């Protein structure tokens, strides 16, 4: 009995030792708003609609993404391109394109389904807002402005096949990871550089 009790005092001292040691451990916490952690290269975040190098929209309004979407988050209404004002190289373009980011589960199936690689998921994830309506992203916020660049279109990849699957995300969207969207391994570099949409 007595020995058991004394043993317990030992346990208390051991516990005190552990907490003392932990006081000097490095904390894994990343103080988020001031320091950004780097995402995996293929992180599924906010969508964007890309353009070709000549400024034309990639989307041809085929609604494949909409039908592929398991969450029914995408609404596409296509329209014929007028000959004098061609929005996309194909016959049709998306007159309206809306994604409800509250419904979206960020699965990336829309990206898989798209025949022209128009819709892609970027690593951006800060889209909180106070009103539900503002989570419905329409073309004005999804479509990249012409000066934002084009990423790497599939037709410029060797054989049209992504050579390095692990790096696809780095080139698929217009977000320039190297330029500092995100950060080095423990996130010491601030998010100084934001390009593209959804600011």
């Amino acid at each position, binding site marked *: 009995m007595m020995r058991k009790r004394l043993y317990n005092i030992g346990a208390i001292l051991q516990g*005190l030792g552990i*907490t*003392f040691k*932990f*006081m000097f*451990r490095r*904390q894994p*916490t990343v*103080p988020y708003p001031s320091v950004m952690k780097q995402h995996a290269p293929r992180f599924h975040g906010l969508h964007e609609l890309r353009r070709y190098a000549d400024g034309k929209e990639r989307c041809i309004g085929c609604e494949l993404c909409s039908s592929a979407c398991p969450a029914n988050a995408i609404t596409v209404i296509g329209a014929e391109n007028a000959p004098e004002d061609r929005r996309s190289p194909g016959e049709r373009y998306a007159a309206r394109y809306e994604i409800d980011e509250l419904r979206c589960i960020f699965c990336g199936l829309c990206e898989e389904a798209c025949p022209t690689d128009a819709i892609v998921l970027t690593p951006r994830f800060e889209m909180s807002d106070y009103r539900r309506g503002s989570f419905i992203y329409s073309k004005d916020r999804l479509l990249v402005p012409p000066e934002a660049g084009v990423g790497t279109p599939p037709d410029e990849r060797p054989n049209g096949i992504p050579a390095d699957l692990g790096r696809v995300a780095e080139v698929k969207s217009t977000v320039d990871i190297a330029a500092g969207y995100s950060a080095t391994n423990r996130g010491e570099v601030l998010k100084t550089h934001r390009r593209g949409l959804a600011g």
Partner: protein
Amino acid sequence: MDAVMNAAPLWVVILVKSAVLLLVVVTTFAYAMLFERKILAWMQLRPGPNRVGPWGLLQPAADAAKLILKEDLTPKTADPLIYRLAPFISLLTAFSVYAIIPFGASADGSAWAIGNVNAGILFVMAIASLGIYGISLGGWASGSKFPLLGSVRSTAQMISYELSMSLSFVGVLILAGTTSLDGIVNAQQRWWFLLPQFVGFVIYVITAVAETNRTPFDLVEAETELVGGFHTEYSGLRFGLFFIAEYVNMLTVACIATLLFLGGWNAPFGLGMVPGIVWFIAKVACFMFFYIWLRGTLPRFRYDRLMAFGWKVLLPIATLNLIATAVWVAYWGK
């Protein structure tokens, strides 16, 4: 400075001293709280409060502002008069101990304190025993179940542990041969009472944690079972007052430990060039750290274990320690 002090009438001196001390204690409370949150956070691999001001140093101000701005609720079933009175009883008793705690001594040996009472340590005990009223009245007056349970627990706990605490004091009193606090400190110039009264010190540390209702003895406010214990119904500033009282009590207990067992403002190892007040503060800070360290380490006691521990382990050990000390002093001491 001394000339001014001698010229002014006694009550002015006491008033000024009290005001200064109050300010110091409240500031210490604020930073003790921040200190605790930081240390706990580090022990749990968190950064702790770091948003308000550099390293979170302005956090106490933010907390105070929040508490002041919050709504002051009084439940319908509460007893309004006593419900409002209770936090002030807690606060009053917590602060009035500082009337007699000496923090250092001038070269001529007079202690730095507002008042120097011959029965110093007894006075501290008397005031501390009144401190329970704040908790138990507050819990009763809230008119709901959890606070009542919390306050009943606290009453039983504090009464039980007060006994062992007093007994651990008496060992020191026998060695020092006086009950005045600066007398006790002066008696420790050669040896801290930590050495001859080690058992007493351990008992004091345990009972002190219990008296201030801190983990692992925080059954009074056990949030997992009693929501918030005696202060469940309190909000805003009244809750803040209880909060201040708890931390000020912690500080008191640390001061008493320093005065009684850790040699007060006496420097260890003949390091006399550092002023005594620095030693005093350093010792109090160490004790406070130990307190927080305990909180970061130990889980809460079960209630029956708490009582059994107090009455069946601490009290007998404290009594034996007292008898041993008395016998030692009577036959070999002095």
